[in-house]
């Protein structure tokens, strides 16, 4: 059975590859994003050497790396699930001897792998040439970073599964999905590192899963987290990955009873 799930990763990867033309525009847009934030942060720092625990060099690296990581963990599983529920093709998924959510997850992973290999890694090289980044020299930081963005993918996908399944209850969950998208980008630390938020907000955000998606891996990579802090950050990510399994299972069980199939 495991081989079937792996097959879904492979097929999604190949499907993405077959339609790769559009991903060039993605490179441009990501570079623009990184560029804009790069100059924005430079302006904000001005002569200051350190803000929110980040030095000017660290923050630009943080921005670049976070955006590149986002290209890996980002996926549209919520939209895919919502669409399949809305057009009724979820029925086909239910007559197959596999777990629907796990298959979706694997497809998301195939997509993530595609972006990692075809976009993130080459993109990182391009970004390094364009902007003076302060990349870590210790190999373990690189290793930890890749482990941590794996967790980022896991948590982000779990949140997407939950958001997508809302379509079982709402006829149209577009609004919820857009809201989630903004929420994740804003509160995960891609746009603004968590340490820049005011104290009360930081306390709240530290108790939410979003910071585990972008802020923690970015911080570990740029060196604002060290030693045991990194271990703790990985622990937080692992805890969230486990904690989110329960609501997903409960929601799926409820959805099975609620399920109705649109269009016969």
């Amino acid at each position: 059975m495991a081989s079937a799930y792996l097959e879904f990763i492979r097929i999604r990867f190949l499907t993405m590859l077959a339609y790769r033309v559009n991903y060039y525009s993605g490179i441009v847009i990501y570079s623009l994003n990184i560029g804009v934030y790069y100059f924005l942060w430079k302006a904000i720092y001005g002569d200051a050497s350190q803000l929110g625990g980040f030095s000017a060099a660290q923050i630009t690296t943080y921005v670049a790396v976070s955006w590149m990581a986002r290209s890996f963990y980002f996926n549209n599983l919520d939209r895919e699930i919502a669409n399949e529920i809305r057009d009724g093709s979820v029925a086909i998924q239910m007559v197959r001897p596999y777990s629907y959510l796990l298959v979706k997850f694997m497809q998301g992973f195939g997509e993530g792998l595609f972006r990692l290999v075809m976009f993130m890694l080459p993109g990182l090289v391009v970004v390094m040439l364009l902007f003076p980044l302060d990349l870590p020299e210790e190999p373990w930081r690189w290793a930890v970073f890749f482990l941590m963005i794996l967790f980022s993918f896991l948590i982000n996908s779990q949140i997407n599964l939950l958001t997508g399944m809302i379509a079982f209850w709402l006829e149209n969950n577009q609004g919820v999905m857009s809201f989630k998208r903004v929420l994740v980008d804003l509160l995960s630390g891609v746009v603004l590192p968590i340490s820049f938020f005011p104290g009360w907000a930081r306390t709240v955000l530290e108790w939410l899963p979003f910071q585990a998606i972008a802020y923690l891996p970015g911080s570990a990579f740029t060196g604002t987290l060290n030693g045991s802090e990194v271990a703790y950050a990985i622990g937080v990510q692992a805890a969230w990955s486990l904690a989110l399994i329960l609501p997903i299972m409960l929601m799926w069980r409820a959805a099975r009873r609620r399920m109705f199939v649109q269009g016969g």
Partner: protein
Amino acid sequence: MAAIEVERLRKTFRVPEHRESLRGALMDLFLRRYKEIVAVRDISFRIPEGEICGYIGENGAGKSTTIKMLAGILVPTSGRVEVAGYVPWRDRETFVRRIGVVFGQRSQLWWDIGVIESFRLLRKVYRVSETDFRRRLDELTETLQLGDLLHRPVRKLSLGQRMRCELAAALLHNPSILFLDEPTIGLDIVVKTQIREFLKKLNREHGTTILLTTHDLQDIEALCSRVIMLDEGMIIYDGSLEELKERWSRGREIRFRFSEPVEPSGLAALTDGLPVRWTAADEESARLWVPREIQVADVLARLVGALPILDMSFKETGTDEIVRAIYQSGSASVPAAGPAGNASVPGVEAAGGKPVPAAGTAEAAPVSVKAAGDAAASAGPEEAAEGEPGEEKRTEAQVRG
């Protein structure tokens, strides 16, 4: 052992009720009103192994909902359902290995990849061994003539070609029970015949139990030893097609052509005293309706010799007409106006008073086909604008689909 056993099975859906006007829409925002729709009302039936059973009824009668409960897709509201010894919704992942399902209006193949790739993926999903897969595929390729289709992407197949591939896809794991939801919808007569022949062969050689819903009664005539007829979520007939025809066709029609003009009033005089009815088309032809309880010989005895009969033909009431009449009356019990002694039909459950119409639930689907799997992953316009790497391609794929 029965392949399918259903007892007092019921499914209700709760659907939001939309109020009219802007004010109503605003009220909907805050206070949703729901109404309960009973799609399937406490139905019971048993289908033994190896039977081909037709499941018919108008749109919205609850056919698809029943099939979806039998296939483990929907969880019943109440009642008992057992298929191949499993409770479908509870043991879904193990149970679905035993069944094959084809939805005429949905594709189960992956839109973007070749047919053979879809089959290989299904082989892994169903854990079919390579040798079994090869043997099965060869057999299906031959009987369904898939040969040159296998290497084409699904989106480039015609509906008839796709349907044959869908059937093959549903049978790769050699299921003992096959559910078909309108398998011949939209197909031309050649493909329809081909598919019917294939299903007959499948049933004969592998003993596969088949339950199919259809609107094409020729499917039923060609395939089914048994018919279950559904109306507004209730079974109104369960028995053989022969019996249905026999009980319901209240008579036959004899068509005459005359060699010289005949006065219509003269015709009625000839059959005076018999409960028959003449319809004169013109002076040189006429139709005579003879109820079942009258022997044709008695009628003809009076006519032959008295009329200049050039030609004569008999017409039995067709299944189409019978079924249309039953749909219209909403009950398969023979109406009181019918011939005496035919008042009850075995296996008919009293339909009683007409319940609230349950239209517009799970049925009445547009004839559009959506591919399962990867093609369904579409990126909204919002996405396209934001340019996630490699996303827009799927919008394009959908447009083409």
